[in-house]
């Protein structure tokens, strides 16, 4: 069997070996429910779509995904198992991807728990299911991007609290990269082209594009390249910091 797959299976099982997985899933579902029905006014809008559900995903992920990511490498370093793992016949890439894919699948499982809301909206009206499917794909890709950032930062510190706070800030920056809140920081002193490049990194912009039902290859490439780049950086950070 492929080492990436063996690590993936071990990691995924580890989530469910402790209450962590169940608590996370329950809180995720509770919050999506609260956001959709109260803040998003799901019923009051009178529209058969899930926009009020997906709108809040970036903000939910902003808090919940750094909480998942913060333990991925810092715990391994704290327990010393990193020395065991990295002296087994696996490459750094296999270890990093195995762990990432396990965490991503775990989030996918939590996201799958929201499928009843999709069924509900079909029961209540006639939504465009293609748009909803696209939004689910976009949401999962965006979750992967948050996760990759969190993993890289978790690799840099033994402290899970620091990993959480820093990941949250960096993810916040990327979420809003296309908005004045972030852009005003740069536009005053950086050339226009660079500011535009920063704006194009915004999670929100890419997610909103996909969740309108238009799966543009550029949005897909953006998220996948973003994930790959942060995981590559993670491998470098682990290499540098593993023995500290």
């Amino acid at each position, binding site marked *: *069997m492929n*080492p990436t797959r*063996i*690590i993936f299976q*071990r990691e995924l*099982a*580890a989530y469910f*070996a*402790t209450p962590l997985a169940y608590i996370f899933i329950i809180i995720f579902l509770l919050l999506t429910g609260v956001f959709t029905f109260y803040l998003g006014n799901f019923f009051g809008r009178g529209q058969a779509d899930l926009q009020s559900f997906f709108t809040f995903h970036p903000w939910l992920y902003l808090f919940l995904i750094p909480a998942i990511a913060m333990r991925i490498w810092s715990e391994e370093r704290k*327990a*010393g*198992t990193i*020395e*065991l793992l*990295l*002296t*087994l*016949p*696996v*490459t750094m890439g296999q270890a990093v991807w195995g762990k990432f894919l396990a965490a991503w699948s775990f989030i996918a499982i939590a996201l799958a728990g929201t499928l009843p809301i999709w069924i509900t909206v079909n029961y209540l009206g006639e939504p465009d299911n293609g748009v909803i499917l696209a939004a689910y794909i976009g949401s999962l890709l965006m979750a992967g991007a948050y996760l990759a950032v969190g993993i890289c930062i978790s690799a840099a510190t033994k402290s899970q609290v620091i990993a959480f706070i820093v990941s949250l800030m960096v993810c916040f920056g990327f979420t809003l990269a296309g908005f004045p809140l972030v852009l005003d920081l740069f536009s005053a002193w950086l050339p226009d082209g660079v500011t535009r490049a920063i704006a194009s990194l915004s999670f929100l912009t890419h997610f909103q594009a996909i969740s309108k039902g238009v799966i543009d290859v550029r949005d897909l490439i953006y998220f996948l390249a973003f994930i790959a780049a942060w995981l590559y950086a993670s491998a470098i950070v682990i*290499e540098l910091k*593993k*023995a500290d």
Partner: protein
Amino acid sequence: MIEVESLSKRFADRFAVDNLSFTVSPGEVLGFLGPNGAGKSTTMKMLTGFLTPTSGTARIMGFDIQEDPVAAKRCFGYLPEGAPGYGDMSVAQFLEFIADIRGLDGARRQARLDAVITDINLQDVQGQKLDTLSKGFRRRVGLAQAILHDPQVLILDEPTDGLDPNQKHEVRKLIQGMAKDKIIVISTHILEEVEAVCSRAMIIAHGKLLADDTPANLSAQTDSGRLTDYFHHITAGGLS
């Protein structure tokens, strides 16, 4: 064969390991001795590819640990300092995970798992999570993990630390039993252990090699004929 070529590791301004070279051949049980902080663990971490050396390199059964790490890592079993393991897994799950990563499958996988669990007396704790094990059992699980794929080379960082005298005796017997055609490197600061199991002792301090001979020859260099006295003299700066 383990071939170590002018291996050095510098942390900030201090050399933890300073230009160390040696080879170990099949059949040898090498005891790595030294005061705390001498560089024993650092050397082992470089041998196993966990730490990248500042300069020099090591080859395990001909595979360079830096150029061909995965091939080199297949050849050895390693017990890291403190015997780390995944606390959320049961002993059986943990050993199965190691067996899979080591590429064992089919009948051989089962046979090795059974053999190791019997040899190290883990039958009674198979279903227990690693987190709930006593220090002695954790160490034994670490040892089981290292010998699971019946490696040519065994690198054990303080294998008997935290064990009671009976368990120490058993682990030593186990090491002696495997010593015939394997290469075994153990680090320890228990000198009686070196006399009991090692065919060769290397004493290092401040990352430098101070002595390299059979335990008997080293002991013979003191009036008392005791390895403890030799160790004390040489590492406290009395001899040399």
